[in-house]
């Protein structure tokens, strides 16, 4: 272990970047599992253990990476302070996304299942769209591609507007509560996940001072 001092390896921030991408992979895994429980009728007990273990892994990684960011500043000085603060926010957003997968699991554990419902195809399509956004966000973090980031942010705004519209639709639906409420809640959770993914991508390209704020200066409260 000590001999690794003499070996070449990635720098502190490179390691944080790689781990962050790996955390996003874990968060996607939780999201997919939780969604399967709600949309495909998978046994919540069976997927729950995996989701909770993944969440613990995400939380442990967040703690470890926060420490590594402190070590980076202690060793390298304040030159990378903007990046370090950006990563701190970004890690928190990934941790929140992990929690939101647990929220979706909670729906399944409450006995909610949309498997076989008339509108399940729409839900499955949207789930796939969001699941793909995890991959896209990770790619953008790795490549720091500003054009892709802008396209991602535009798509996320569109998707969030659709989710918001759906929430309103369900709130004013004439259908019974046990039909409308789970659908509204699921769209609300999705909206928050997409907002956090957008926040992660924003952190990759925007200065730290503008993160979590909209263009006019108002706070972004969706996530």
């Amino acid at each position, binding site marked *: 272990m000590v001999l690794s*001092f003499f070996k070449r390896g990635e720098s502190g921030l490179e390691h944080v970047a790689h781990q962050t991408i790996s955390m996003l992979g874990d968060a996607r895994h939780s999201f997919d599992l939780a969604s399967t429980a709600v949309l495909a009728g998978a046994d919540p007990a069976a997927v729950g253990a995996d989701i909770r273990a993944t969440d613990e892994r995400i939380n442990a990684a967040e703690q470890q990476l926060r420490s590594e960011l402190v070590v980076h500043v202690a*060793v390298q000085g304040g030159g990378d302070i903007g990046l370090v603060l950006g990563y701190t926010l970004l890690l928190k957003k990934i941790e929140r996304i992990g929690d939101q997968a647990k929220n979706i699991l909670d729906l399944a554990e409450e006995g909610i299942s949309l498997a076989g419902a008339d509108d399940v195809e729409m839900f499955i399509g949207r789930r796939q769209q969001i699941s793909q956004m995890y991959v896209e966000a990770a790619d953008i973090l790795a490549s720091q591609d500003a054009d892709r980031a802008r396209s991602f942010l535009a798509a996320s705004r569109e998707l969030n507007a659709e989710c918001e519209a759906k929430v309103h639709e369900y709130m004013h639906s004439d259908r019974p509560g046990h039909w409308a409420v789970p659908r509204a809640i699921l769209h609300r959770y999705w909206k928050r996940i997409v907002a956090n993914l957008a926040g992660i991508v924003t952190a990759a390209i925007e200065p730290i001072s503008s993160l979590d704020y909209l263009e006019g200066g108002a706070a972004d409260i969706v996530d």
Partner: protein
Amino acid sequence: MSDRGPVQFESAARLLRFAVVLGLIYLFLAGVSSLEGGIKVMGADTQERLFSNVSHPIAGLFIGLLGTVLVQSSSASTSVIVGLVASGALGLEAAVPMIMGANLGTTVTNTLVSLGHVRQSNEFRRALSAATVHDFFNVMAVIVLLPFELATGLISRLATGTADLLVGSGGAEWESPLKALVKAPVSALKDGLKSAGFDGNALGVSMVAVGLVVVLVSLISITKNMKQLIAARLERSMNRVLGRGGGLVAIVVGILVTVAVQSSSITTSILIPMSAAGVITLRNAYPVTLGANVGTTITALLAAMAASGSDALSIALVHTWFNVIGILVLFGIPFLRPLPIRAAELLAEIAVRRRTFAFVWVLGMFIIVPLIGVAIFR
């Protein structure tokens, strides 16, 4: 293709920096040699007047401490001591307490760094305890080992024995190959000063002054450049200490990092913000500082390579053995191990309640007590 450019530029910059470090090490060795040469040029009377004050071990201890506080580098002060021993002006016996004092004085830097957290109680408690655990370990090592050394001469005998093993028992006549390499610039300096009209004590003092400046400047520059060169490795090592906890691994990391940057202050000062932020515990930071104590002795060993005779090597080895034995006793014996930690925690607790106490500690420990000690025992 676009990625190769910056990578190649970075590699070239690293190579250049490494070459600069090699040049600086040469300059450092030349500085030590100039220091030794300057003392030798001075008359025996002058040498006697200069070093009669350190004949008492307590005075020697405090002079070593004050000298190190002044330059904020035990690497620099111990290298000067090596040069003085090599010149024959300072005996090995008198130099041993000075080396121990230098070990004490070097802890001032991270203690000063910890004072930067004085406004935040919790951060300050953690930062000050991480800094002063180094103070307390070194104070306790001196309390245990200085009387033991004065009574038995064990550390100096161990060091002399090791030096004999390394250079042979006819060590008084031993001349390091590096000494020959740095002869040219020192001779050029001496000739230059002579042609400028310097001779006798004036020539000696000038050579010593130039030597001191060169040693200090080159050491600072070596540290700065090496820190840049090994920053990524340093970061990875610190992360491993966080991941695996303290103990032997932390000691070895402390040694490696300090040998690489040639400064224990760099290693221990990095621990302060980490401790203040709570990412490393005092128990895990403590062994890193012990490793730093051992690692910093490499500079005096390097200086001994440019000095004459085996006594220079012996005093450098005294520094190493003192720290190794200190660790064996104070860290190796289980019931003694927590003592520096508890003392540091207690001091931090008091200082959090009365902030002025921290400043009193720094002034008292590093300036007032040593000055009084020198005044009494010289």
